[in-house]
């Protein structure tokens, strides 16, 4: 049995241990296991395939360089995802410098059109297959602004508390709360809209 075949049966913890000693084959196995999740997270945030690919690769390189700092208090996948998110946030900040502040962006905290939206009273996701639900959520995420999408991902997918999100997004807790609120309201409307389209 070859050495690389052995890696496939090893737990992440053992692979991390070997990687810390400089074993690149063990690290490659870790990449192979988690690459889809890391790429998916980068894509969810960036909504751009090329950027997501570049950032996910950069995250792996950073992880290799900083592996010695990983103490195993969280899972390796969580640690990797956090590195990826930080890189994405940095990139989004860089991108923001290049885009003009539009009225839409300024409306993120005050609500804009979301203030006027009626409450969605029928659950538009009820009875949907998991694959279909994922597809619709992905489409809806793509229609949100960068700020709304980011706050939703950090809160709902990463399970971060308001305080932690504020730190990562470099804004106040109040801003996080209002962004999250209007992001959810818009998400509800988008999901309900998909349902209405289908019925028509």
């Amino acid at each position, binding site marked *: 049995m070859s050495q690389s075949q052995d890696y496939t049966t090893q737990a992440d913890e053992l692979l991390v241990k070997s990687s810390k000693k400089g074993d690149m084959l063990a690290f490659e196995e870790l*990449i192979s296991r988690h690459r*889809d999740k890391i790429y998916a997270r980068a894509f969810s945030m960036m909504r751009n395939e090329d950027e997501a690919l570049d950032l996910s690769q950069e995250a792996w390189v950073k992880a290799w360089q900083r592996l010695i700092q990983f103490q195993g208090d969280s899972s390796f996948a969580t640690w990797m995802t956090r590195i990826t998110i930080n890189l994405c946030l940095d990139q989004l900040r860089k991108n923001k410098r290049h885009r003009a502040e539009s009225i839409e962006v300024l409306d993120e905290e005050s609500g804009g059109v979301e203030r006027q939206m009626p409450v969605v009273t029928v659950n538009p996701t009820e009875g949907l297959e998991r694959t279909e639900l994922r597809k*619709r959520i992905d489409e809806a995420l793509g229609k949100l602004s960068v700020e709304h999408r980011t706050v939703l991902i950090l809160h*709902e997918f990463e399970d971060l508390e*308001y305080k932690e999100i504020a730190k990562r997004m470099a804004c106040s807790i109040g801003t996080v709360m209002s962004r999250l609120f209007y992001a959810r309201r818009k*998400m509800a409307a988008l999901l309900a809209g998909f349902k209405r389209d289908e019925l028509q």
Partner: protein
Amino acid sequence: MNEENKIKLQAYLDGELSGRDEREISELLTTDHQAQLLLAELRMVKSALHGGEPELKLPETREFYWSKIQKEIERAGQGPVSQSNSWWKPVYARFAGGLAAACGVLVISFIAFNNGPTKYAAGEVEGSGDEMGVITFRSDAERMTVVYLFDREADDIVDSSAD
């Protein structure tokens, strides 16, 4: 219901309200039908997102993806082993910021004492760089200048150590 209460309603859902606010919102929910509907909507979105995180496949083969990462790792020439074999590197990394700040304070204090008061009574200057940030604060009244140096990538490091 005002906007403030709507946002508190969400914090209630997320378990982020303090005792008094939580009681207020609980009370509101027993009497306000709109609040009940809004809470149901917010809950629906939360639950949909929890079960519906998009799943994607990396659009590259394992070999090709790895070859690019491997190339970059080798180009950077930094790895976990080189760090772990040198006991002084983590110590240096931990205290480098503090040492640099102390040196900065000494140098600026030396210049300030030798050149006398500047035209600025007190001032704050922020410098920027890709990896290292600098903020200086000068107070002539206190005859003091403080220089803060910080790692812009500290978030990653915090994550790594506090995982």
